[in-house]
């Protein structure tokens, strides 16, 4: 990527090491390297493994960002070692630190246990569930109708998204972005006939409503898959089908207050989402809030242009009816 003979960067490479047969806890090994422009992190790991320390373990195969084997945490951010250039990271941070993916147990060095990852993918039924009768030839599906699933189609199951998922970190039972992106791939597929069933399943606890929308998954995916967008689409589809859940209750409550006045009514949303019982459980907060005068308005005044809100709502509904398609 640099010109021939351009700058070699002398740099420190730190790599996470852990050998369960031998170590009680992990440590880091350090090497000094002459890093050439164009060298990827994988190139450096190979050099270490082949010529300096054959005990270093890491997964890799295609070296072209399509097999998903080489997910690792590179200077704090998960990605593929095979398509990550080493010099820019070193330029920015002064050194290169290579660690295993997060949110998954470490088996050895940079190799993590992905069985939890796979289990969640299996759970969402990652295969087409077509209608009982298929056409004689290929399905006839217009190009535009194949577009929606594109945001999830190219997932290579590398695990980068799950590694960075803040919701998964706090809740190991959360299905996670990869499984849910895969779920959307089928929900959005015109040839799949199990949409409602799927959305019901994914609306259960630890599913689509447990995403905290932190955007890490969208940010780190090496294939530009948008798991968070996929989850948002499924939420809307679930709502369109009237599938109820704690999450949908909350979102609908929020939405309804906007329709009522144009602005959020925090009080109403809390009431509708938690119910009196739920609020009572949070009596501690409520009391303090009232004490400080922080309690939100019980009734919100309609914005002046409220008529606009109603009009736009009507126009959007009309447009949806005209288009009439499954999203």
């Amino acid at each position: 990527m640099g010109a021939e003979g351009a700058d070699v960067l002398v740099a420190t490479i730190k790599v996470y090491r852990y050998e369960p047969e031998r170590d009680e806890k992990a440590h880091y090994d350090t090497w000094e390297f002459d890093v050439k422009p164009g060298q990827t992190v994988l190139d450096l790991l190979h050099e270490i493994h082949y010529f300096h320390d054959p005990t270093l373990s890491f997964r890799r195969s295609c070296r072209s960002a399509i097999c998903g084997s080489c997910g690792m945490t590179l200077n704090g951010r998960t990605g593929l070692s095979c398509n990550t250039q080493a010099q820019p990271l070193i330029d920015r941070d002064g050194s290169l630190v290579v660690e295993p993916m997060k949110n998954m147990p470490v088996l050895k060095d940079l190799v993590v246990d992905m069985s939890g990852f796979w289990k969640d993918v299996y759970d969402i039924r990652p295969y087409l569930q077509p209608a009982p009768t298929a056409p004689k030839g290929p399905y006839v599906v217009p190009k535009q109708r194949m577009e929606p699933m594109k945001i999830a189609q190219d997932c290579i199951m590398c695990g980068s998204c799950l590694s960075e998922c803040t919701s998964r970190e706090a809740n190991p039972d959360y299905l996670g972005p990869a499984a849910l992106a895969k779920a959307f791939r089928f929900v959005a597929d015109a040839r799949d006939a199990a949409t409602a069933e799927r959305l019901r399943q994914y609306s259960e606890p630890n599913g689509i409503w447990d995403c905290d929308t932190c955007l890490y998954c969208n940010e780190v995916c090496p294939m530009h898959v948008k798991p968070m967008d996929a989850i948002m689409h499924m939420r809307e589809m679930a709502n369109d089908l009237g599938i109820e859940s704690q999450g949908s209750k909350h979102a609908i409550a929020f939405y309804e207050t906007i329709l009522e006045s144009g602005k959020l009514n925090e009080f109403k949303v809390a009431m509708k989402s938690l119910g009196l019982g739920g609020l009572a459980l949070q009596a501690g907060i409520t009391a303090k809030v009232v004490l400080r005068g922080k309690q939100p308005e019980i009734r919100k005044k309609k914005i002046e242009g409220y008529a606009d809100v109603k009009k736009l709502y009507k126009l959007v509904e009309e447009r949806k009816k005209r288009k009439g398609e499954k999203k």
Partner: protein
Amino acid sequence: MKYAYFPGCVGQDSCNELDVSTKLIAEELGIELVELEDATCSGAGFVQDVNYELSLALNARTFAMAEKLGLDILTVCSTCQFNLDRANKELTGDPEKLAEVNKMLAEIGLRYSGRVEIKHLLWVLVNEIGLGTLRRRVKVDLSDLNIASFYGCQLIRPGSLHGYDDPDRPQYFERLIEALGGKPVDYEGRKKCCGFPITFVNENASMTMNAKNMLEAKEHGADVMATSCPLCHINLDMYQGRAERVAGQRIELPILHLPQLVGLAMGIDPQRLRLKRHIVSAKAVLERVRPKEEAPVAPTSS
């Protein structure tokens, strides 16, 4: 400097102190704010979960209103920033979509041509007011304070949307803190999620991540935290007690809004900044804040 001010909903309701302090520092710094009083909620992701098309139309209406004023939009909430900017970039990047939405706006007498930019107060302070100017306006000595920033996910990701700051190594807030004389705290959680979006869905998970961020900040020496998002503020401040319960330990970390921090540094009376509204008291912090001493005059030779 003039902006169409998008106050958001929470910033004028349970976190009203955000709106108040924003207006105070805007006045001090010469940022003229024309409030978009008639703007609707940005949707905060929740309207988008129910009726994405409507949120797009409502936000387009907001943009049209700002465009009529000939002004860009200023936000003070990470969530507003993300939701508004995402909508804006979708419209400006897709002429067909924009035309569709304009058909609807026409029926309410509005039109959007895609000329509005949406910026968060944090970026405006650093890029447009400038750190130099801020440094000169500091009247209070914050050098004793370790201040942990909390951006809120939606202000730094996705990198491709915002175009400000490096999502992996965000520095805007830290540079601001330094310019204000404080000591920024380096900790991982500043980039992470406060948990607010799932507080009403899975409170346990929300409080787990909430507590983790705050405790990590404290472990790294934080005396106080400042955030650029009122929704984060709700989780960090209002729900700090619930976070303590899940974590099984005290946290006791006062949480400021960004403009409150700036206002404090500029010598605005904490009362006016409405710090008393916070659930977690900032008293301990305020006691360590003194007026800045005059710079010592170099002795002349005698």
